[in-house]
Protein backbone atom coordinates (compact mmCIF):
# COMPACT_ATOMS: atom_id res chain seq x y z
CA UNK A 1 0.00 0.00 0.00
CA UNK A 2 1.11 3.53 -0.63
CA UNK A 3 1.89 6.09 1.98
CA UNK A 4 -1.04 7.32 3.98
CA UNK A 5 -1.93 9.81 6.67
CA UNK A 6 -2.58 7.99 9.90
CA UNK A 7 -3.27 8.86 13.54
CA UNK A 8 -1.28 7.30 16.38
CA UNK A 9 -4.33 5.71 17.99
CA UNK A 10 -5.50 4.28 14.66
CA UNK A 11 -2.01 2.93 14.02
CA UNK A 12 -2.32 0.96 17.27
CA UNK A 13 -5.51 -0.68 16.01
CA UNK A 14 -3.90 -1.56 12.68
CA UNK A 15 -0.84 -2.94 14.45
CA UNK A 16 -3.06 -5.10 16.64
CA UNK A 17 -4.91 -6.43 13.62
CA UNK A 18 -1.60 -7.14 11.88
CA UNK A 19 -0.43 -9.00 14.99
CA UNK A 20 -3.50 -11.23 14.78
CA UNK A 21 -5.74 -9.68 17.42
CA UNK A 22 -9.27 -11.06 17.32
CA UNK A 23 -10.78 -9.53 20.46
CA UNK A 24 -11.02 -5.98 21.73
CA UNK A 25 -12.87 -4.73 24.80
CA UNK A 26 -12.79 -1.16 25.97
CA UNK A 27 -14.58 1.76 27.54
CA UNK A 28 -14.56 5.26 26.07
CA UNK A 29 -12.02 7.57 27.67
CA UNK A 30 -9.98 10.43 26.30
CA UNK A 31 -7.43 10.43 24.80
CA UNK A 32 -7.59 6.73 23.89
CA UNK A 33 -11.16 6.58 22.52
CA UNK A 34 -10.03 6.53 18.88
CA UNK A 35 -8.62 3.03 19.44
CA UNK A 36 -12.05 1.85 20.62
CA UNK A 37 -13.86 3.64 17.81
CA UNK A 38 -11.45 2.37 15.16
CA UNK A 39 -11.84 -1.16 16.55
CA UNK A 40 -15.64 -0.91 16.34
CA UNK A 41 -15.50 0.31 12.75
CA UNK A 42 -13.00 -2.35 11.76
CA UNK A 43 -14.99 -5.09 13.48
CA UNK A 44 -18.19 -4.10 11.67
CA UNK A 45 -16.66 -5.23 8.38
CA UNK A 46 -14.19 -7.82 9.74
CA UNK A 47 -16.15 -10.24 11.95
CA UNK A 48 -12.97 -12.04 12.96
CA UNK A 49 -12.33 -9.11 15.29
CA UNK A 50 -14.81 -9.39 18.17
CA UNK A 51 -15.60 -6.07 19.78
CA UNK A 52 -17.11 -5.23 23.14
CA UNK A 53 -17.77 -1.76 24.47
CA UNK A 54 -17.92 -2.84 28.08
CA UNK A 55 -19.60 -1.24 31.09
CA UNK A 56 -16.29 -0.03 32.50
CA UNK A 57 -12.54 -0.53 32.39
CA UNK A 58 -12.65 -3.27 35.00
CA UNK A 59 -14.91 -5.33 32.75
CA UNK A 60 -12.75 -4.53 29.71
CA UNK A 61 -9.56 -5.68 31.41
CA UNK A 62 -11.12 -8.90 32.67
CA UNK A 63 -12.83 -9.56 29.35
CA UNK A 64 -9.57 -9.46 27.40
CA UNK A 65 -8.12 -11.96 29.87
CA UNK A 66 -11.10 -14.29 29.36
CA UNK A 67 -10.85 -13.85 25.59
CA UNK A 68 -7.17 -14.70 25.62
CA UNK A 69 -7.78 -17.83 27.68
CA UNK A 70 -10.47 -18.80 25.17
CA UNK A 71 -7.96 -18.56 22.33
CA UNK A 72 -8.07 -15.00 20.99
CA UNK A 73 -5.21 -12.54 20.85
CA UNK A 74 -6.83 -9.71 22.76
CA UNK A 75 -6.26 -6.12 23.79
CA UNK A 76 -7.75 -3.03 25.34
CA UNK A 77 -6.92 0.66 25.26
CA UNK A 78 -7.45 3.19 27.99
CA UNK A 79 -6.11 6.29 29.69
CA UNK A 80 -5.60 7.89 33.11
CA UNK A 81 -8.23 6.71 35.62
CA UNK A 82 -9.20 3.86 33.29
CA UNK A 83 -5.70 2.52 33.43
CA UNK A 84 -5.74 2.79 37.21
CA UNK A 85 -8.96 0.74 37.29
CA UNK A 86 -7.26 -2.01 35.28
CA UNK A 87 -4.40 -2.57 37.69
CA UNK A 88 -6.00 -5.45 39.57
CA UNK A 89 -6.68 -7.30 36.32
CA UNK A 90 -3.12 -6.72 35.13
CA UNK A 91 -1.84 -8.42 38.27
CA UNK A 92 -4.31 -11.24 37.63
CA UNK A 93 -3.05 -11.70 34.06
CA UNK A 94 0.51 -11.85 35.43
CA UNK A 95 -0.53 -14.47 37.95
CA UNK A 96 -2.30 -16.60 35.32
CA UNK A 97 0.39 -16.15 32.67
CA UNK A 98 -2.05 -14.80 30.09
CA UNK A 99 -0.76 -13.13 26.92
CA UNK A 100 -2.69 -9.93 26.26
CA UNK A 101 -1.97 -6.26 25.51
CA UNK A 102 -2.98 -3.16 27.44
CA UNK A 103 -2.58 0.15 25.62
CA UNK A 104 -2.27 3.17 27.92
CA UNK A 105 -2.60 6.52 26.15
CA UNK A 106 -1.37 8.74 28.94
CA UNK A 107 -2.99 11.99 30.01
CA UNK A 108 -2.34 14.29 32.96
CA UNK A 109 -3.32 12.80 36.31
CA UNK A 110 -3.95 11.94 39.03
CA UNK A 111 -7.70 11.32 39.05
CA UNK A 112 -9.68 12.88 36.21
CA UNK A 113 -6.87 15.39 35.90
CA UNK A 114 -6.51 16.97 32.46
CA UNK A 115 -8.30 14.48 30.20
CA UNK A 116 -7.16 15.79 26.83
CA UNK A 117 -3.64 16.89 27.74
CA UNK A 118 -0.58 14.69 27.29
CA UNK A 119 1.42 13.35 30.20
CA UNK A 120 3.92 10.61 30.96
CA UNK A 121 2.95 10.05 34.57
CA UNK A 122 2.18 6.33 34.32
CA UNK A 123 5.80 5.18 34.03
CA UNK A 124 5.96 3.77 37.55
CA UNK A 125 2.34 2.60 37.49
CA UNK A 126 3.15 0.39 34.50
CA UNK A 127 5.82 -1.27 36.63
CA UNK A 128 4.26 -1.32 40.08
CA UNK A 129 0.55 -0.55 39.63
CA UNK A 130 -0.86 -3.88 40.79
CA UNK A 131 -0.23 -5.32 44.23
CA UNK A 132 2.58 -7.77 44.82
CA UNK A 133 5.65 -8.65 42.75
CA UNK A 134 5.58 -9.32 39.03
CA UNK A 135 7.73 -8.63 35.99
CA UNK A 136 6.32 -6.00 33.64
CA UNK A 137 7.22 -5.56 30.00
CA UNK A 138 6.41 -2.12 28.62
CA UNK A 139 7.10 -0.42 25.27
CA UNK A 140 6.74 3.25 24.37
CA UNK A 141 6.91 4.30 20.70
CA UNK A 142 7.65 7.85 19.51
CA UNK A 143 6.06 8.08 16.08
CA UNK A 144 2.85 6.99 14.41
CA UNK A 145 4.77 4.39 12.41
CA UNK A 146 6.25 3.11 15.65
CA UNK A 147 2.78 2.93 17.23
CA UNK A 148 2.03 0.35 14.55
CA UNK A 149 5.38 -1.41 14.80
CA UNK A 150 5.57 -1.68 18.59
CA UNK A 151 1.96 -2.77 18.89
CA UNK A 152 2.98 -5.82 16.87
CA UNK A 153 6.04 -6.30 19.08
CA UNK A 154 3.83 -5.97 22.16
CA UNK A 155 1.55 -8.78 20.95
CA UNK A 156 4.55 -10.94 20.02
CA UNK A 157 6.22 -10.33 23.33
CA UNK A 158 2.98 -11.06 25.21
CA UNK A 159 2.77 -14.44 23.51
CA UNK A 160 6.37 -15.34 24.21
CA UNK A 161 6.42 -14.08 27.78
CA UNK A 162 2.91 -15.32 28.60
CA UNK A 163 2.14 -12.02 30.26
CA UNK A 164 0.15 -8.81 29.82
CA UNK A 165 2.38 -6.41 27.91
CA UNK A 166 1.79 -2.66 28.17
CA UNK A 167 2.06 -0.35 25.17
CA UNK A 168 2.44 3.24 26.34
CA UNK A 169 1.38 6.21 24.29
CA UNK A 170 0.19 9.69 25.24
CA UNK A 171 -2.44 12.23 24.24
CA UNK A 172 0.03 13.95 21.93
CA UNK A 173 1.24 10.83 20.14
CA UNK A 174 -2.19 9.20 20.09
CA UNK A 175 -3.69 12.20 18.33
CA UNK A 176 -0.71 12.89 16.09
CA UNK A 177 -1.27 12.42 12.36
CA UNK A 178 1.75 11.45 10.30
CA UNK A 179 2.42 10.10 6.84
CA UNK A 180 3.38 6.45 7.13
CA UNK A 181 4.02 3.49 4.88
CA UNK A 182 2.92 0.50 6.89
CA UNK A 183 4.08 -1.93 4.22
CA UNK A 184 7.63 -0.82 4.89
CA UNK A 185 7.29 -2.14 8.43
CA UNK A 186 7.86 -5.85 8.52
CA UNK A 187 7.59 -7.49 11.91
CA UNK A 188 7.09 -11.27 11.82
CA UNK A 189 4.07 -12.31 13.87
CA UNK A 190 4.50 -14.77 16.74
CA UNK A 191 1.71 -17.37 16.70
CA UNK A 192 -0.53 -18.15 19.64
CA UNK A 193 1.30 -19.85 22.51
CA UNK A 194 -1.39 -20.59 25.09
CA UNK A 195 -3.50 -23.65 24.45
CA UNK A 196 -7.11 -22.45 24.51
CA UNK A 197 -9.75 -23.42 27.06
CA UNK A 198 -11.65 -26.66 26.49
CA UNK A 199 -8.78 -28.39 24.69
CA UNK A 200 -9.37 -31.53 26.67
CA UNK A 201 -7.55 -30.62 29.88
CA UNK A 202 -8.76 -29.87 33.37
CA UNK A 203 -6.58 -26.88 34.12
CA UNK A 204 -7.32 -24.33 36.83
CA UNK A 205 -6.47 -20.73 35.91
CA UNK A 206 -6.41 -19.30 39.38
CA UNK A 207 -5.64 -15.90 40.81
CA UNK A 208 -5.28 -17.63 44.15
CA UNK A 209 -1.94 -19.28 44.92
CA UNK A 210 -2.49 -22.93 44.07
CA UNK A 211 -0.47 -26.06 43.45
CA UNK A 212 -0.42 -27.46 39.90
CA UNK A 213 -3.29 -29.85 40.83
CA UNK A 214 -5.51 -26.95 41.89
CA UNK A 215 -5.23 -27.37 45.63
CA UNK A 216 -4.74 -24.11 47.55
CA UNK A 217 -1.11 -23.17 48.19
CA UNK A 218 -2.05 -20.08 50.12
CA UNK A 219 0.32 -20.73 53.00
CA UNK A 220 3.26 -22.34 51.17
CA UNK A 221 6.03 -19.80 50.70
CA UNK A 222 8.35 -22.24 48.95
CA UNK A 223 5.75 -23.02 46.29
CA UNK A 224 4.99 -19.34 45.87
CA UNK A 225 8.67 -18.52 45.36
CA UNK A 226 9.11 -21.41 42.93
CA UNK A 227 6.24 -20.19 40.72
CA UNK A 228 7.29 -16.54 41.02
CA UNK A 229 10.91 -17.22 40.05
CA UNK A 230 9.82 -19.36 37.13
CA UNK A 231 7.54 -16.63 35.75
CA UNK A 232 10.15 -13.94 36.35
CA UNK A 233 12.88 -15.90 34.57
CA UNK A 234 10.70 -16.45 31.51
CA UNK A 235 9.68 -12.80 31.28
CA UNK A 236 13.23 -11.49 31.70
CA UNK A 237 14.57 -13.93 29.14
CA UNK A 238 11.92 -12.92 26.61
CA UNK A 239 12.31 -9.21 27.37
CA UNK A 240 16.01 -9.53 26.48
CA UNK A 241 14.98 -10.18 22.89
CA UNK A 242 12.96 -6.95 22.88
CA UNK A 243 15.61 -4.58 24.24
CA UNK A 244 14.67 -1.70 21.93
CA UNK A 245 16.31 1.70 22.29
CA UNK A 246 17.79 4.56 20.32
CA UNK A 247 21.22 6.08 20.94
CA UNK A 248 22.18 9.02 18.80
CA UNK A 249 22.24 12.76 18.20
CA UNK A 250 25.59 14.36 18.99
CA UNK A 251 27.40 11.51 20.70
CA UNK A 252 30.45 13.72 21.30
CA UNK A 253 28.51 16.17 23.44
CA UNK A 254 29.21 16.15 27.17
CA UNK A 255 25.57 15.80 28.21
CA UNK A 256 23.27 12.87 27.55
CA UNK A 257 19.57 13.61 27.21
CA UNK A 258 17.24 10.76 28.11
CA UNK A 259 13.79 11.14 26.63
CA UNK A 260 11.12 8.75 25.36
CA UNK A 261 7.74 8.70 23.67
CA UNK A 262 6.57 12.03 22.34
CA UNK A 263 9.11 13.88 24.49
CA UNK A 264 11.93 12.62 22.32
CA UNK A 265 10.23 14.21 19.31
CA UNK A 266 9.65 17.49 21.11
CA UNK A 267 13.31 17.61 22.09
CA UNK A 268 14.56 17.08 18.53
CA UNK A 269 15.95 20.66 18.19
CA UNK A 270 18.44 19.77 20.96
CA UNK A 271 20.11 17.26 18.64
CA UNK A 272 23.24 19.26 17.73
CA UNK A 273 24.05 19.94 21.38
CA UNK A 274 23.33 16.72 23.22
CA UNK A 275 23.62 13.00 22.92
CA UNK A 276 20.31 11.10 23.12
CA UNK A 277 19.32 7.87 24.79
CA UNK A 278 15.74 6.88 24.11
CA UNK A 279 14.47 3.78 25.85
CA UNK A 280 11.68 2.17 23.83
CA UNK A 281 11.43 -0.77 26.18
CA UNK A 282 10.60 1.15 29.33
CA UNK A 283 10.39 -1.97 31.52
CA UNK A 284 12.39 -3.97 32.38
CA UNK A 285 14.62 -0.92 32.56
CA UNK A 286 17.48 -1.03 30.03
CA UNK A 287 20.05 -1.31 32.78
CA UNK A 288 22.95 -2.78 30.78
CA UNK A 289 22.62 -0.23 28.00
CA UNK A 290 22.38 2.68 30.45
CA UNK A 291 25.41 1.43 32.34
CA UNK A 292 27.40 1.17 29.15
CA UNK A 293 26.43 4.50 27.61
CA UNK A 294 25.95 6.86 30.55
CA UNK A 295 29.57 6.82 31.83
CA UNK A 296 30.68 8.52 28.57
CA UNK A 297 28.85 11.68 29.63
CA UNK A 298 29.54 14.32 32.23
CA UNK A 299 25.88 15.05 32.82
CA UNK A 300 22.60 13.24 32.40
CA UNK A 301 19.28 15.00 31.86
CA UNK A 302 15.97 13.21 31.84
CA UNK A 303 13.26 15.15 30.03
CA UNK A 304 9.88 13.57 30.74
CA UNK A 305 6.21 14.31 31.25
CA UNK A 306 6.24 13.53 34.95
CA UNK A 307 7.95 14.88 38.04
CA UNK A 308 11.00 12.66 37.75
CA UNK A 309 9.53 9.16 37.59
CA UNK A 310 11.98 7.80 35.02
CA UNK A 311 14.80 10.03 36.33
CA UNK A 312 14.52 8.29 39.70
CA UNK A 313 14.84 4.94 37.96
CA UNK A 314 17.97 6.06 36.08
CA UNK A 315 19.50 7.32 39.32
CA UNK A 316 18.83 4.01 40.97
CA UNK A 317 20.34 2.04 38.11
CA UNK A 318 23.45 4.22 37.69
CA UNK A 319 24.05 5.31 41.31
CA UNK A 320 24.57 8.89 40.17
CA UNK A 321 22.69 12.16 40.13
CA UNK A 322 20.50 12.98 37.18
CA UNK A 323 19.23 16.41 36.12
CA UNK A 324 15.51 16.66 35.64
CA UNK A 325 13.34 18.52 33.20
CA UNK A 326 9.77 17.68 34.17
CA UNK A 327 7.10 18.71 31.67
CA UNK A 328 3.99 19.01 33.80
CA UNK A 329 0.38 20.10 33.38
CA UNK A 330 0.29 19.01 29.75
CA UNK A 331 2.99 21.55 28.82
CA UNK A 332 4.81 19.16 26.53
CA UNK A 333 6.41 21.66 24.22
CA UNK A 334 9.83 22.83 23.11
CA UNK A 335 9.21 26.00 25.07
CA UNK A 336 8.77 23.99 28.24
CA UNK A 337 11.92 22.01 27.45
CA UNK A 338 13.88 25.23 27.02
CA UNK A 339 12.56 26.62 30.29
CA UNK A 340 13.46 23.43 32.07
CA UNK A 341 16.99 23.35 30.67
CA UNK A 342 17.48 27.00 31.52
CA UNK A 343 16.41 26.40 35.08
CA UNK A 344 19.21 23.89 35.53
CA UNK A 345 21.72 25.95 33.54
CA UNK A 346 21.98 23.59 30.59
CA UNK A 347 20.23 25.55 27.85
CA UNK A 348 22.64 25.95 24.89
CA UNK A 349 23.21 29.57 23.89
CA UNK A 350 21.95 28.93 20.35
CA UNK A 351 18.66 27.62 21.62
CA UNK A 352 18.27 30.50 24.04
CA UNK A 353 18.74 32.91 21.14
CA UNK A 354 16.21 31.00 19.11
CA UNK A 355 13.74 31.71 21.87
CA UNK A 356 14.36 35.43 21.59
CA UNK A 357 14.03 35.48 17.82
Amino acid sequence: MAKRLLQGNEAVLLGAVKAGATYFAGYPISPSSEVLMAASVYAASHPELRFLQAEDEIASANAIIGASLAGAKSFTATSGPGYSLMQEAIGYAHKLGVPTVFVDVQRVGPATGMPTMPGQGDILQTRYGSSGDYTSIVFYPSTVAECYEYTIHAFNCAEESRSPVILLSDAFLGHLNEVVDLDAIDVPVVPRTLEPLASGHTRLFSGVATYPDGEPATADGDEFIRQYEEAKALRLEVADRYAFYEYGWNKDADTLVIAFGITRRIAQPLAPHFALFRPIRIWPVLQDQLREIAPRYKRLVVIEGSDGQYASVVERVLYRDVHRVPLLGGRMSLEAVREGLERIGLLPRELAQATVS
Partner: protein
Amino acid sequence: MSYKDKIKTDLFPTIWCPGCGIGLIMTQLATVMDDLGLDKSNTVMVTGIGCTGRMGAYMQFDSVYTLHGRTLPVAEAIATVRPELNVIVVSGDGDLTSIGGNHLLHAIRRNPRIKVLCNNNEIYGLTGGQTGPTTPVGTKTVSSPAGATFSPVNLQGLVNTNPNAFYAKTTVYHQGQMRRAIKEAIEWPGFAFVDITSQCIENNGRRIGFPSANEMLNYYKKEYRQAPPGSTQLANHQLGIVKGKPAETEPVPVGAASGNGSGEA
Protein backbone atom coordinates in the same frame (compact mmCIF):
# COMPACT_ATOMS: atom_id res chain seq x y z
CA MET B 1 -21.05 -42.49 33.07
CA SER B 2 -21.81 -41.03 36.43
CA TYR B 3 -21.86 -37.56 37.90
CA LYS B 4 -18.74 -38.59 39.78
CA ASP B 5 -16.82 -38.52 36.51
CA LYS B 6 -17.28 -34.75 36.51
CA ILE B 7 -15.69 -34.35 39.92
CA LYS B 8 -12.05 -34.63 41.03
CA THR B 9 -12.86 -36.90 43.95
CA ASP B 10 -9.16 -37.49 44.50
CA LEU B 11 -9.00 -33.93 45.88
CA PHE B 12 -11.56 -34.75 48.57
CA PRO B 13 -12.11 -33.78 51.30
CA THR B 14 -13.01 -30.33 50.03
CA ILE B 15 -12.17 -27.15 51.90
CA TRP B 16 -15.87 -26.59 52.57
CA CYS B 17 -17.04 -26.82 56.18
CA PRO B 18 -19.05 -29.85 57.29
CA GLY B 19 -22.71 -29.02 56.66
CA CYS B 20 -22.00 -26.53 53.87
CA GLY B 21 -24.55 -26.34 51.05
CA ILE B 22 -22.08 -25.92 48.18
CA GLY B 23 -21.46 -29.65 47.79
CA LEU B 24 -25.20 -30.16 47.21
CA ILE B 25 -25.00 -27.72 44.32
CA MET B 26 -21.89 -29.37 42.89
CA THR B 27 -23.56 -32.78 42.96
CA GLN B 28 -26.63 -31.59 41.06
CA LEU B 29 -24.54 -29.60 38.60
CA ALA B 30 -22.35 -32.64 37.95
CA THR B 31 -25.46 -34.79 37.49
CA VAL B 32 -26.92 -32.39 34.92
CA MET B 33 -23.56 -32.12 33.16
CA ASP B 34 -23.43 -35.88 32.92
CA ASP B 35 -27.01 -36.05 31.60
CA LEU B 36 -26.37 -33.39 28.97
CA GLY B 37 -22.99 -34.69 27.83
CA LEU B 38 -20.96 -31.75 29.02
CA ASP B 39 -17.27 -32.58 29.08
CA LYS B 40 -13.86 -30.97 29.13
CA SER B 41 -13.88 -30.42 25.37
CA ASN B 42 -17.15 -28.49 25.23
CA THR B 43 -17.49 -26.81 28.61
CA VAL B 44 -15.62 -24.22 30.65
CA MET B 45 -16.27 -23.22 34.22
CA VAL B 46 -15.76 -19.70 35.51
CA THR B 47 -15.89 -19.13 39.24
CA GLY B 48 -15.50 -16.14 41.53
CA ILE B 49 -13.94 -15.43 44.87
CA GLY B 50 -15.64 -16.90 47.91
CA CYS B 51 -16.14 -20.45 49.17
CA THR B 52 -18.25 -21.24 46.09
CA GLY B 53 -15.45 -20.30 43.74
CA ARG B 54 -13.47 -23.33 44.81
CA MET B 55 -15.89 -25.52 42.90
CA GLY B 56 -14.00 -25.07 39.65
CA ALA B 57 -10.93 -26.68 41.18
CA TYR B 58 -12.95 -29.78 42.07
CA MET B 59 -14.48 -30.43 38.67
CA GLN B 60 -13.13 -32.11 35.53
CA PHE B 61 -13.11 -29.07 33.26
CA ASP B 62 -10.84 -26.21 32.36
CA SER B 63 -11.77 -23.64 34.95
CA VAL B 64 -11.06 -19.97 35.43
CA TYR B 65 -10.94 -18.80 39.03
CA THR B 66 -11.37 -15.07 38.54
CA LEU B 67 -10.72 -11.99 40.61
CA HIS B 68 -13.40 -11.10 43.14
CA GLY B 69 -16.52 -9.99 41.29
CA ARG B 70 -15.22 -10.51 37.77
CA THR B 71 -16.71 -13.81 36.66
CA LEU B 72 -19.17 -12.28 34.22
CA PRO B 73 -16.85 -10.24 31.96
CA VAL B 74 -14.46 -13.20 31.81
CA ALA B 75 -17.29 -15.63 31.03
CA GLU B 76 -18.90 -13.34 28.48
CA ALA B 77 -15.63 -12.92 26.60
CA ILE B 78 -15.11 -16.69 26.54
CA ALA B 79 -18.63 -17.17 25.18
CA THR B 80 -18.02 -14.50 22.54
CA VAL B 81 -14.75 -16.00 21.34
CA ARG B 82 -16.00 -19.59 21.53
CA PRO B 83 -19.78 -19.59 21.01
CA GLU B 84 -19.81 -23.38 20.75
CA LEU B 85 -18.80 -23.82 24.40
CA ASN B 86 -20.99 -24.20 27.45
CA VAL B 87 -19.82 -21.47 29.80
CA ILE B 88 -20.93 -22.12 33.37
CA VAL B 89 -20.42 -19.49 36.05
CA VAL B 90 -20.61 -20.61 39.66
CA SER B 91 -20.19 -18.08 42.40
CA GLY B 92 -21.63 -16.61 45.55
CA ASP B 93 -24.15 -13.86 46.11
CA GLY B 94 -21.54 -11.41 47.39
CA ASP B 95 -19.24 -11.93 44.43
CA LEU B 96 -21.98 -11.76 41.80
CA THR B 97 -24.31 -9.11 43.16
CA SER B 98 -22.20 -6.77 45.29
CA ILE B 99 -18.65 -6.30 44.02
CA GLY B 100 -19.72 -7.73 40.66
CA GLY B 101 -23.07 -5.94 40.60
CA ASN B 102 -22.27 -3.64 37.71
CA HIS B 103 -21.18 -6.56 35.55
CA LEU B 104 -24.39 -8.41 36.47
CA LEU B 105 -26.49 -5.43 35.43
CA HIS B 106 -24.80 -5.27 32.05
CA ALA B 107 -24.53 -9.00 31.44
CA ILE B 108 -28.31 -9.15 31.93
CA ARG B 109 -28.67 -6.31 29.43
CA ARG B 110 -26.40 -7.91 26.81
CA ASN B 111 -27.84 -11.41 27.28
CA PRO B 112 -24.72 -13.47 26.49
CA ARG B 113 -25.10 -17.25 26.43
CA ILE B 114 -23.64 -17.86 29.88
CA LYS B 115 -25.22 -19.75 32.76
CA VAL B 116 -24.88 -18.41 36.25
CA LEU B 117 -25.38 -20.54 39.35
CA CYS B 118 -25.53 -18.26 42.37
CA ASN B 119 -24.90 -19.91 45.72
CA ASN B 120 -27.05 -17.56 47.75
CA ASN B 121 -26.22 -18.12 51.41
CA GLU B 122 -27.14 -14.58 52.43
CA ILE B 123 -23.73 -13.96 53.99
CA TYR B 124 -20.03 -13.37 53.30
CA GLY B 125 -18.99 -16.83 54.46
CA LEU B 126 -15.32 -17.09 53.54
CA THR B 127 -14.38 -13.86 55.29
CA GLY B 128 -16.12 -14.86 58.49
CA GLY B 129 -19.81 -14.01 58.19
CA GLN B 130 -20.18 -10.32 57.40
CA THR B 131 -23.50 -8.97 56.18
CA GLY B 132 -23.93 -9.16 52.40
CA PRO B 133 -26.13 -7.77 49.65
CA THR B 134 -28.64 -10.59 50.14
CA THR B 135 -28.72 -10.67 53.94
CA PRO B 136 -32.31 -10.24 55.15
CA VAL B 137 -33.09 -7.04 57.06
CA GLY B 138 -32.55 -7.49 60.79
CA THR B 139 -30.09 -10.39 60.57
CA LYS B 140 -27.34 -10.06 63.14
CA THR B 141 -23.93 -10.71 61.67
CA VAL B 142 -20.35 -9.93 62.68
CA SER B 143 -20.63 -6.67 60.75
CA SER B 144 -24.23 -5.84 61.62
CA PRO B 145 -24.46 -6.37 65.39
CA ALA B 146 -27.80 -4.53 65.53
CA GLY B 147 -29.18 -6.39 62.52
CA ALA B 148 -28.72 -5.83 58.79
CA THR B 149 -30.08 -2.43 57.83
CA PHE B 150 -30.83 -2.51 54.12
CA SER B 151 -33.20 -4.53 51.96
CA PRO B 152 -31.58 -7.40 50.07
CA VAL B 153 -30.90 -6.91 46.39
CA ASN B 154 -33.86 -7.99 44.23
CA LEU B 155 -32.23 -10.57 41.97
CA GLN B 156 -35.39 -11.66 40.20
CA GLY B 157 -36.27 -8.05 39.47
CA LEU B 158 -32.78 -7.35 38.15
CA VAL B 159 -32.65 -10.37 35.87
CA ASN B 160 -36.14 -9.75 34.56
CA THR B 161 -35.26 -6.25 33.41
CA ASN B 162 -34.32 -8.14 30.25
CA PRO B 163 -37.45 -9.76 28.79
CA ASN B 164 -35.24 -12.40 27.14
CA ALA B 165 -33.62 -13.61 30.34
CA PHE B 166 -34.05 -16.72 32.47
CA TYR B 167 -34.39 -16.62 36.25
CA ALA B 168 -34.87 -19.61 38.51
CA LYS B 169 -35.28 -19.74 42.27
CA THR B 170 -34.45 -22.92 44.11
CA THR B 171 -32.86 -24.17 47.31
CA VAL B 172 -30.39 -26.90 48.13
CA TYR B 173 -33.15 -28.77 49.99
CA HIS B 174 -35.21 -29.08 46.81
CA GLN B 175 -32.73 -31.24 44.92
CA GLY B 176 -35.03 -32.35 42.11
CA GLN B 177 -36.26 -28.84 41.44
CA MET B 178 -32.69 -27.51 41.59
CA ARG B 179 -31.57 -30.15 39.08
CA ARG B 180 -34.38 -29.14 36.72
CA ALA B 181 -33.54 -25.47 37.08
CA ILE B 182 -29.85 -26.08 36.33
CA LYS B 183 -30.69 -28.28 33.36
CA GLU B 184 -33.09 -25.77 31.83
CA ALA B 185 -30.60 -22.98 32.45
CA ILE B 186 -27.85 -24.81 30.59
CA GLU B 187 -30.21 -25.47 27.71
CA TRP B 188 -31.45 -21.87 27.61
CA PRO B 189 -30.30 -19.91 24.53
CA GLY B 190 -29.12 -16.84 26.41
CA PHE B 191 -28.33 -15.50 29.84
CA ALA B 192 -29.65 -17.69 32.64
CA PHE B 193 -29.46 -17.03 36.37
CA VAL B 194 -30.18 -19.72 38.94
CA ASP B 195 -30.62 -18.28 42.41
CA ILE B 196 -29.94 -21.09 44.88
CA THR B 197 -30.65 -20.51 48.54
CA SER B 198 -28.16 -22.50 50.51
CA GLN B 199 -26.93 -22.81 54.06
CA CYS B 200 -23.74 -21.48 55.60
CA ILE B 201 -24.02 -23.14 58.98
CA GLU B 202 -20.64 -22.15 60.39
CA ASN B 203 -20.56 -18.44 59.65
CA ASN B 204 -24.25 -17.60 59.61
CA GLY B 205 -26.74 -20.33 60.52
CA ARG B 206 -25.48 -21.12 64.01
CA ARG B 207 -25.33 -17.41 64.86
CA ILE B 208 -28.98 -16.87 63.92
CA GLY B 209 -30.27 -19.81 65.92
CA PHE B 210 -29.94 -22.95 63.80
CA PRO B 211 -28.26 -25.74 65.79
CA SER B 212 -27.14 -27.60 62.64
CA ALA B 213 -27.25 -27.61 58.85
CA ASN B 214 -30.06 -30.12 59.02
CA GLU B 215 -32.31 -27.56 60.73
CA MET B 216 -31.50 -25.06 58.00
CA LEU B 217 -32.49 -27.56 55.32
CA ASN B 218 -35.70 -28.33 57.21
CA TYR B 219 -36.37 -24.62 57.38
CA TYR B 220 -36.11 -24.40 53.58
CA LYS B 221 -38.44 -27.38 53.33
CA LYS B 222 -41.00 -25.67 55.54
CA GLU B 223 -40.73 -22.14 54.17
CA TYR B 224 -40.37 -22.59 50.41
CA ARG B 225 -43.25 -23.58 48.11
CA GLN B 226 -43.46 -24.29 44.42
CA ALA B 227 -44.93 -21.38 42.50
CA PRO B 228 -48.11 -22.13 40.56
CA PRO B 229 -47.34 -23.38 37.04
CA GLY B 230 -47.01 -20.57 34.53
CA SER B 231 -46.04 -17.95 37.11
CA THR B 232 -44.36 -14.97 35.52
CA GLN B 233 -43.18 -13.66 38.83
CA LEU B 234 -42.13 -15.52 41.96
CA ALA B 235 -43.25 -14.30 45.34
CA ASN B 236 -40.94 -14.40 48.34
CA HIS B 237 -40.07 -18.02 49.19
CA GLN B 238 -41.58 -19.34 46.00
CA LEU B 239 -39.63 -21.79 43.87
CA GLY B 240 -39.85 -21.81 40.12
CA ILE B 241 -38.43 -20.84 36.77
CA VAL B 242 -39.35 -17.60 35.04
CA LYS B 243 -38.38 -17.69 31.42
CA GLY B 244 -38.49 -14.71 29.18
CA LYS B 245 -39.01 -14.87 25.47
CA PRO B 246 -35.82 -16.31 23.96
CA ALA B 247 -33.88 -13.75 22.00
CA GLU B 248 -34.65 -14.12 18.31
CA THR B 249 -31.08 -13.82 17.19
CA GLU B 250 -28.50 -16.36 18.21
CA PRO B 251 -25.37 -14.99 19.86
CA VAL B 252 -22.93 -14.08 17.14
CA PRO B 253 -19.25 -13.56 17.83
CA VAL B 254 -19.18 -10.58 15.58
CA GLY B 255 -17.67 -7.17 16.01
CA ALA B 256 -20.11 -4.36 16.45
CA ALA B 257 -22.95 -6.82 16.84
CA SER B 258 -21.38 -8.38 19.94
CA GLY B 259 -23.93 -9.72 22.38
CA ASN B 260 -27.00 -11.12 20.75
CA GLY B 261 -29.26 -8.25 20.03
CA SER B 262 -31.32 -8.59 23.17
CA GLY B 263 -34.56 -6.71 22.94
CA GLU B 264 -34.20 -6.23 19.23
CA ALA B 265 -36.18 -7.86 16.49
